[in-house]
């Protein structure tokens, strides 16, 4: 068991693949915003890669372990400490009963992941342990973690012996600089934007705004030129208004006439009345989850086959081949 003794900014229980299959009812997939990091953490502690861990955003909580556990910290570097001493990331570490995990300065990235051998033991809701806080389902009581929460840990799939010292192959550790390149498939309702508007979208270093959460990432930059059109009946009064349609997870739309693009990550709203310009390929949502206010982001147009290849590469990374033993 582990206890949240001090609440951070936003920590929630998440698994890797979330809750697919309910989007037509307005329930998004959820799951780790940087799935690669959570998945690698799970492998380090001998879990199935889809097991539930804790996603920790920017300002970490303090976590007290009530029992000994093999743990691993991955993702963004939020300066994790065990009993006040720095603890290595991307490596399996033994925590003793009574040990206190805390976090300090955000050195890079935006979200760290805590994986525990056996996984966080919360009930499956619609097939997943992932938290969807806005819809109040999944994870721990359908919400982000609070001071005083006590989380059970599952029975480890493999005996937690010889796990300590397992590390992610350094060449396979993702890097989170202050600039993210995201690959996007232009389409859906891109016809609302002019050729010049799309060119502006693809050639701008967008600034990541302060409005970034699991439901939406908002970017600051120039206005995108839209075609001159009268919005269709029932759609609203803005040229970027469309008759409400589905928003793919990872899709980008502007609000108002071509301003402030919003990217919809794993807790996306499933539809609405703004024109989608394109959709970021699934693997690059990992990178979105590690970008933070003030960082820059550039969108590059790719074909869907590039997305498929990148997905296969990511799945290959999420195997034992990424783990090395000892120093």
């Amino acid at each position, binding site marked *: 068991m582990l206890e949240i003794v001090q609440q951070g900014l936003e920590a929630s229980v998440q698994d890797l693949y979330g809750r*697919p*299959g*309910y*989007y*037509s*009812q*307005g*329930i998004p997939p959820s799951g780790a915003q940087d799935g690669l990091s959570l998945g690698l953490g799970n492998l380090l502690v001998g879990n199935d890669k889809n097991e539930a861990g804790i996603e920790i955003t920017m300002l970490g909580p303090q976590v007290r372990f009530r029992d000994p556990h093999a743990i691993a910290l991955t993702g963004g570097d939020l300066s994790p400490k065990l009993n006040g001493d720095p603890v290595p990331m991307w490596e399996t570490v033994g925590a003793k009963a009574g040990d206190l995990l805390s976090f300090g300065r955000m050195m890079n990235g935006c979200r760290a992941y805590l994986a525990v051998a056996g996984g966080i033991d919360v009930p499956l809701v*619609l097939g997943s342990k992932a938290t969807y806080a*806005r*819809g*109040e*389902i999944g994870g721990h009581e*359908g919400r982000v973690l609070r001071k005083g929460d006590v989380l059970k840990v599952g029975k480890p799939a493999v005996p937690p012996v010889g796990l300590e010292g397992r590390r992610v192959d350094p060449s396979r550790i993702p890097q989170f600089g202050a600039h993210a390149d995201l690959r*996007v*498939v232009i*389409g*859906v309702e891109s016809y609302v934007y002019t050729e010049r508007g799309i060119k502006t979208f693809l050639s701008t270093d967008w600034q990541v705004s302060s409005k970034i959460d699991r439901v939406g990432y908002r970017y600051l930059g120039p206005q995108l030129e839209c075609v001159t059109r009268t919005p*269709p*009946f*029932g*759609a*609203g*009064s803005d040229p970027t208004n*469309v*008759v*409400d*349609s*589905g928003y*793919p*997870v*990872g*899709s980008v739309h502007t609000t108002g006439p071509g301003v402030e693009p919003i990217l919809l990550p794993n807790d996306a*709203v*499933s*539809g*609405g009345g703004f024109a*989608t310009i*394109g*959709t*970021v*390929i*699934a693997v690059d949502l990992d990178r979105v989850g590690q970008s933070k206010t003030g960082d820059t982001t550039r969108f590059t147009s790719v074909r*869907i086959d*590039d*997305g*498929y290849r990148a*997905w296969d590469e990511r799945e290959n990374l999420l195997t034992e081949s990424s783990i090395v033993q000892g120093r």
Partner: protein
Amino acid sequence: MAHRSARYDYGGDRYVFVEFSIDMELAQNFKTLSMAEAIKQARIPGIVEVIPSICSMLVEYDRTKLHADSLIGRLKGIEQSMTQLTQIPTRIIDFPILFADPWTTECAEAFKGHHNTGEVPNIDFVARENHFSDRESFINALCATPYWTVMVGFTPGLPWLYPLGVGNEEAIQAPKYNRPRTWTPDRAVGLGGAFLAIYSVRNPGGYQLLGRTTNPIYDARQRYPDFKENPVLLKPGDILRWRSVDRDGYDRVWAGIEDGTYRFPIRNVTFEPEGYLRDPPGYTKALMGGG
């Protein structure tokens, strides 16, 4: 059956987007729902979920089993083989509503500065915008109009509703708020453009607030009997019939919902899009009258 064919596009590397119309037409919503059903019936391996919206849909697929281009080929085949709109098995569900209730009135008051004219409650503004002489005649007109669920989504279980039996021009309409509210009570019934929506969770929003219904449409904890199978009540195609209740009536129904003794009055019906499109007012009247 409309002859123009749908537009197919990629929604990134895990969805295909199918657009039947860029305009709001009930006929195209019927086509969207017919096609969604036909895709489900075809049981194409690799389809994760069909996600219909108003006049378009997303089809999520598993890229390890299916390439978008072959999926699009299959979907086009299904579209071409659909010679007519399929009958839609649906339900008529009674929705008690307390118009100008205290909760949405409190919300409207809190966001007075965001509103077009600052009128609280919003219902009198909407009545006047639609040339009704008073609140009561507006309420009577709304309760005489069944609403069709064109889409479910945005937030869990939220229905987007469009009037049955009236043309676009006759539909009750209202502009959205100048600036959206940062919260809206759950079960609030709002009007934006010609669409009604029921807020499923406390959420931002910009629709004019008309009242609050007793009926939960999303039950995250699955506490209520009608939600045992699924936390979401409504499906596209469900027909809502508004019933104006006073505060006593509202409290009675709500108490029954809370203790599990009240069951939503639901009548199962088969909706025939072709019949509707031939005579929208006549078909609607017969359907609602129990015919």
